[in-house]
């Protein structure tokens, strides 16, 4: 058997060139895959370092007992207290009361069942805060504060925290990471002031919610005991983002004390499988309490309003017991008026069907109130009350109800237990001592009101139907204040007799004990914990999934390197073709001695396979270097695009294998094309040394229709753009440009192949004629250069200038985020007063649009992780009134904002996203859905109805405020702000707001800076694309040079003959250089012209302002390189002595 592959070594120079070409293709292709591996691997590393041993986390809106993290064996519930009427307040400030006092030693039972192994759960307080350096007053906003103890460090396992208070230290210690220390300019021993939001059980956006700064915020002073690195424990965070967080770790107990939440936490962290908290959770962990009276049991909420989940579960339990609770909604009327008489501050109870529930629109008064107002049944009573204004703050509203009757001052008629605990009211000795979180006009209080308070406390004076009460006072946080199970009591109406209590399932006294016990034990075990935030999230699993990346960097770099890969592959085809063409006689001989064409083809392919395989293998080494270089680039030059310098080379063997296989296939396609072409050449031609098949090639045959069709298509595109008013359509323009490119290349092909009539034979004509000697080779060279120029021009044109960033922010020069949501409107005088902001001065005339924000994952290109739960922003009418650049909208809506109110059916929320985020990060298009869980853990589908164009809102999805409040009802306050200020005052406004609202962690940024940051990512990617496209162009030029060199070598005899005829070397050099120059200029001119047509709308939009300098520099470099390679080729050919070359010729 003959060694059929011996030609590989014999023609090693030519074959080495082919293998090196394959190596370049493999390097770039596999390197791109490794870049993807590296980003994913680095993000995975970051996730694992960030979370350490923590697998799952629970972060609740409210606080719960720290004992939920206690793995001690379960103990029985303590017996109900002896005095069950209004248990003594259990909270330090007495703001909330509980019917269940803490058991001695803090060893409260944990219910039935156990949870996890020892040390597998760590309690923590997770909060956002702002930090101020104790002496320099340097600020840092939106930092993360973690109240932790040794259970946390043990669980995390990637570092230690020095959280022991040093002897003699005045303030508790804090450990900060390098990022925070750097921002504050702080070092160990410095003091640090942390401002946090005080937890409030009652939603701030209700009548009873705290709104004043001193009630909302608390500041603690700490001494920095340790500065830890940003990686590992110092980079701890539950949300996946590659940016280094600014973290402060403080002792759990110290933070509990500052927040007045001793023994309570808002987070549990766990290693391994998350425990089922339903076995250990208690009513108080859910913010629920049971109030037991002599003849009733009530289920109430610490948050004033009962969550629907609590109501549903409690009613289901009651149904099992055969009991029907009364639904209660009690509210405060600021006044009632009848016939000119006035009754201030009265509780009004809305009760479900049964006694004390008049028809809708009517009211019952108790005897005291009826007498005070001097009214009679049938008369109108005007009731006034406070309600939340849409922008925050309170406003007084009124309603008129018809008096249905008067009830006696016994039983429910004077039952203070119908009124849940009102902070600042409940425990007051008298009305004058009220300190509620809303304004009270104490001057309207009369002595008789104080007497009523002394005798009946907060007992309602009026009763309406539940429907009426809910119509007037229901909130998104709930529409009931109690579920009440009642025993027998004497009904005593004066003029209105309620129906017998039996009708609503009156309960025997002894059954109340059973109901209380059932609610206490069964309700926590049966209730859905998700609406209470008591659900674990598999943060590590989610983080690792998100580490797969929002951007497929493998795909990205493959796309960026596409032209480079194509160039390398075409170069391989060219080199292989050159190598094989030298062996035309060999191929002809093989055919002549009886080798079948297929056998010859197989022989060449076998060589190609070996070369491709070896080259691609060699390229794997290059790929490692290339990927390393890309990572180094991402860490340094392209840092704005990735925002982290923690990206390192990671190698997946599968990527090496895939890269090798795909490279080999790509190279083989080029080789096969060459082989197929050669196989069509008849043996006699091959024997004569020719590799040109007789007759027109396929490309030659296609050239004419392609040239014609391309021209027609380009003209059609342009005409359509003009006539249909689509002059700014990028897609149509690109179509026109691409058509022109195809048409131009086909025309070049025709020009190269056309028979040239004999004209005057000038040197330039000879050069042009020579260029057409190998039309396929020349066309390939022109196509490579033209395509590269096309890409470079289109990419350069898409780089945006700074002036284009203004429209994306709707005209707002500033935007801000606060760590603590503002419950009041900073535009209103009252709101500014509450926030301590001046109305005039630097803030005079400054308008602020506050928006509700549901925190979540950054959906912009600034986040490398894949966002699972993107941030949501509620669109207010003020924002919708602004003009923002929309790219596309459903049904081409004229005002896409209106689409946010469109009804797509249950569970579907219309949403608007920025096109960049939707396309590249969320991978969504119009009408496509992103499914995520709402606050109650229910899946909701966010359907894209419009796409913004390069807007400020790339990090979040925009939904209507109504939908935001419906699905995330506990998101109280606004924490995202758009600020309209005169540009010349923007810096001053920014400083004034940051200083004035520093305790809220108010962080103001320039919208232009944010847009520039987004743009920097795009610009970086485009630069990368340009750079790699430029490399591709250089490779194409190199191919052109190689083809030229080969041609010159083939024509050494011809050139020698010309010299013998008297041609001087310089003239010959000019002729050969001109040959190359003609092809080069053709390629550049064609690619540039087609590229400019493709980006014509973009050019028109930017007034022709594209980065011409780098573009022209690249094109010039290509031109220079092309000419230099020509000269080198000519020099090598003409440097040879004349006679030996002439003698070589037969």
């Amino acid at each position: 058997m003959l060694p059929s592959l011996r030609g590989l070594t014999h023609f090693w120079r030519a074959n080495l060139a082919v293998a090196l070409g394959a190596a370049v293709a493999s390097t770039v292709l596999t390197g791109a895959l490794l870049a993807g591996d590296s980003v994913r691997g680095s993000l995975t590393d970051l996730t694992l370092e960030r979370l350490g041993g923590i697998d799952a986390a629970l972060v609740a809106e409210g606080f719960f007992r720290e004992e939920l993290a206690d793995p001690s064996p379960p103990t029985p519930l303590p017996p109900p207290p002896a005095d069950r009427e209004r248990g003594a307040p259990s909270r330090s400030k007495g703001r909330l009361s509980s019917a269940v006092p803490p058991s001695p030693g803090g060893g409260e039972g944990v219910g039935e069942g156990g949870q996890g192994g020892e040390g597998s759960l760590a309690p923590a307080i997770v909060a956002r805060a702002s930090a101020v350096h104790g002496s320099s007053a340097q600020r840092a906003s939106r930092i993360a504060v973690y109240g932790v103890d040794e259970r946390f460090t043990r669980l995390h396992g990637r570092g230690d925290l020095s959280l022991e208070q040093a002897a003699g230290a005045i303030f508790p210690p804090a450990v900060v990471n390098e990022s925070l220390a750097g921002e504050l300019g702080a070092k160990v021993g410095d003091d640090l002031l942390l401002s946090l939001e005080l937890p409030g059980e009652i939603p701030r956006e209700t009548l009873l919610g705290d709104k004043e700064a001193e009630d909302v915020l608390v500041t603690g002073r700490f001494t920095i005991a340790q500065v830890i690195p940003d990686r590992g424990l110092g980079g701890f965070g539950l949300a996946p983002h590659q940016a280094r967080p600014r973290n402060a770790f403080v002792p759990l107990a110290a933070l509990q004390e500052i927040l007045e939440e001793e023994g309570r936490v808002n987070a549990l962290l766990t290693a391994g499988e998350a425990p089922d908290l339903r076995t250990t959770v208690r009513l108080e962990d859910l913010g629920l309490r049971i109030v037991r009276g002599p003849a009733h049991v009530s289920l109430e909420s610490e948050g004033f309003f009962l969550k629907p989940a609590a109501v549903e579960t409690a009613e289901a339990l009651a149904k099992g017991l055969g009991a029907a609770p009364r639904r209660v909604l009690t509210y405060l009327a600021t006044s009632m008026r009848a016939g000119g008489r006035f009754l201030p501050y009265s509780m009004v109870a809305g009760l479900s069907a049964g006694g004390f529930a008049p028809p809708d629109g009517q009211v019952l008064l108790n005897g005291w109130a009826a007498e005070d107002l001097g009214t009679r049944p049938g008369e109108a009573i005007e009731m006034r009350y406070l309600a939340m204004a849409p922008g925050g703050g309170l406003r007084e509203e009124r309603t008129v109800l018809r008096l249905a009757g008067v009830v006696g001052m016994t039983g429910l008629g004077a039952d203070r237990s119908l009124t849940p605990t009102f902070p600042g009211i409940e425990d007051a000795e008298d009305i004058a001592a009220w300190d509620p979180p809303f304004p009270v006009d104490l001057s309207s209080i009369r002595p008789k009101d104080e007497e009523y308070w002394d005798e009946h406390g907060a007992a309602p004076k009026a009763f309406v139907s539940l429907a009426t009460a809910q119509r007037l006072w229901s909130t998104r946080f709930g529409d009931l204040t109690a579920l009440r199970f009642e025993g027998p009591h004497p009904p005593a109406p004066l003029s209105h007799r309620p129906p017998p209590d039996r009708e609503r399932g009156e309960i025997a006294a002894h059954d109340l004990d059973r109901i209380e016990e059932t609610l206490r034990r069964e309700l926590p075990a049966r209730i859905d914990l998700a609406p209470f935030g008591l659900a674990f999230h598999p943060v590590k699993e989610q983080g690792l999934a998100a580490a797969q990346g929002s951007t497929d960097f493998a795909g990205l770099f493959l796309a960026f390197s596409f032209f480079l890969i194509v160039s390398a592959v075409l170069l391989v085809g060219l080199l292989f073709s050159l190598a094989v063409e030298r062996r035309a006689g060999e191929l002809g001989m093989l055919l002549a001695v009886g080798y079948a064409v297929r056998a010859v083809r197989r022989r060449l392919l076998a060589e190609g396979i070996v070369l491709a395989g070896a080259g691609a293998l060699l390229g794997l080494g290059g790929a490692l270097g290339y990927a390393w270089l890309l990572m180094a680039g991402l860490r340094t030059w392209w840092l704005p695009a990735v925002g982290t310098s923690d990206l390192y080379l990671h190698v997946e063997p599968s990527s090496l294998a895939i890269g090798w296989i795909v490279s080999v296939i790509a190279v083989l396609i080029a080789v096969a094309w060459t082989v197929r072409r050669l196989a069509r050449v008849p043996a006699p031609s091959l024997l004569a040394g020719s590799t040109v098949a007789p007759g027109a090639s396929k490309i030659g045959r296609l050239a004419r229709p392609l040239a014609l069709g391309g021209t027609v298509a380009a003209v059609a595109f342009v005409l359509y753009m003009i006539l249909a008013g689509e002059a700014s359509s990028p897609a149509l323009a690109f179509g026109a440009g691409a058509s022109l490119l195809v048409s131009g290349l086909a025309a070049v092909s025709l020009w190269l192949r056309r028979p040239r009539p004999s004209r005057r034979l000038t040197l330039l004509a000879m050069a042009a004629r020579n260029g057409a000697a190998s039309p396929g080779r020349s066309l390939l060279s022109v196509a490579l250069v033209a395509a590269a120029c096309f890409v470079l021009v289109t990419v350069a044109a898409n780089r945006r200038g700074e002036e284009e960033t203004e429209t994306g922010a709707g005209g707002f020069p500033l935007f801000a985020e606060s760590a603590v949501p503002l419950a009041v409107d900073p535009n209103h005088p009252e709101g500014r007063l509450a926030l301590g902001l001046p109305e005039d001065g630097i803030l005079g005339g400054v308008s602020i649009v506050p928006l509700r924000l549901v925190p979540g994952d950054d959906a912009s290109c600034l986040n490398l992780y894949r966002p699972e739960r993107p941030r949501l922003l509620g669109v207010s009418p003020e924002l919708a009134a602004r003009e923002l650049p929309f790219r596309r909208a459903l049904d081409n809506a004229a005002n896409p904002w209106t689409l946010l109110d469109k009804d797509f059916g249950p569970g579907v929320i219309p949403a608007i996203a920025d096109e960049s985020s939707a396309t590249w990060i969320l991978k969504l298009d119009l009408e496509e859905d992103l499914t995520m869980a709402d606050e109650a853990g229910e899946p909701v589908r966010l359907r894209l109805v419009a796409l913004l164009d390069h807007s400020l809102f790339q990090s979040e999805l925009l939904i209507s405020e109504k939908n935001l409040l419906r699905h995330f009802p506990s998101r109280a306050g606004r924490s995202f702000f758009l600020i309209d200020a005169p540009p010349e005052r923007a810096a001053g406004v920014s400083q004034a707001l940051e200083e004035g609202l520093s305790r809220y962690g108010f962080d103001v940024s320039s919208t232009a800076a944010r847009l520039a940051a987004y743009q920097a990512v795009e610009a970086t990617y485009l630069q990368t694309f340009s750079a790699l496209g430029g490399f591709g162009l250089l490779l194409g030029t190199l191919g052109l040079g190689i083809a030229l060199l080969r041609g010159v070598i083939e024509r050494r005899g011809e050139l020698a003959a010309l010299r013998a005829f008297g041609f001087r070397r310089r003239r010959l050099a000019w002729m050969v250089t001109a040959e190359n120059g003609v092809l080069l200029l053709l390629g550049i001119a064609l690619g540039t012209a087609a590229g400019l047509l493709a980006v014509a709308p973009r050019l028109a939009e930017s007034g022709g302002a594209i980065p011409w300098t780098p573009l022209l520099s690249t094109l010039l470099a290509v031109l220079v390189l092309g000419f230099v390679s020509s000269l080198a080729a000519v020099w090598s050919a003409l440097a040879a002595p004349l006679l030996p070359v002439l003698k070589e010729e037969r």
Partner: protein
Amino acid sequence: MTRLSVRDVHKSFAAGSEPVVVLQGVSFDLAAGEALAITGPSGSGKSTLLHLIGTLDRPTSGSIGIDETDPFALPEPELARFRNQTIGFVFQDSHLLPQYTVLENVLVPTQAFPGKIESKEAEARAAELLDRVGLSHRLRHRPAELSGGERQRVAVARALINRPGVLLCDEPTGSLDRAAATAVAALLFELHEASRTVLVVVTHSLDLAARFPRRCELVEGRCSQASAA
């Protein structure tokens, strides 16, 4: 028995709008052991006629029969096999493969259809042929190490390795000096007579042509035949 039959063969090529007529009605028959020299001025169609006989190209019209077979009726793979087994070629350029040794070059045709001849048998035959052409001492040499005459002798051995019935030579001595040309010509006749092949030689050399009993002179595509006196 007629081995090679050429009947009214025409050949023209497309070149621009007007076809170029190369051969016009060439006919002749050759029996086993017969030899024919084809002569004529440059461009008269000598090589084209040889390529047609060698089935490397197809006639525009007319027929060529070899061993009473119409080779052009065969599908391409069968035609290749037919050519491999029936026809031997010697070109003006030896077209030896530089990467192979002399022995391997002679063996190249046997690898077109491996298994047809046992490799040991093929090697023995190649060695024998090289011995007959006087190159038994050069078996392991590369073509680059041979003189022009030696390379052409290797090409002759290669042409005979599959014992073809028809041996076609295109200017086999055209690139050789007189002594080498004489030696190669002698070798061709010797082998032709020994193996009784049909020998067709295209040549410009009047000396070489004069040694052939039959000659075909191509003038303007037409063959005027002459026999040795």
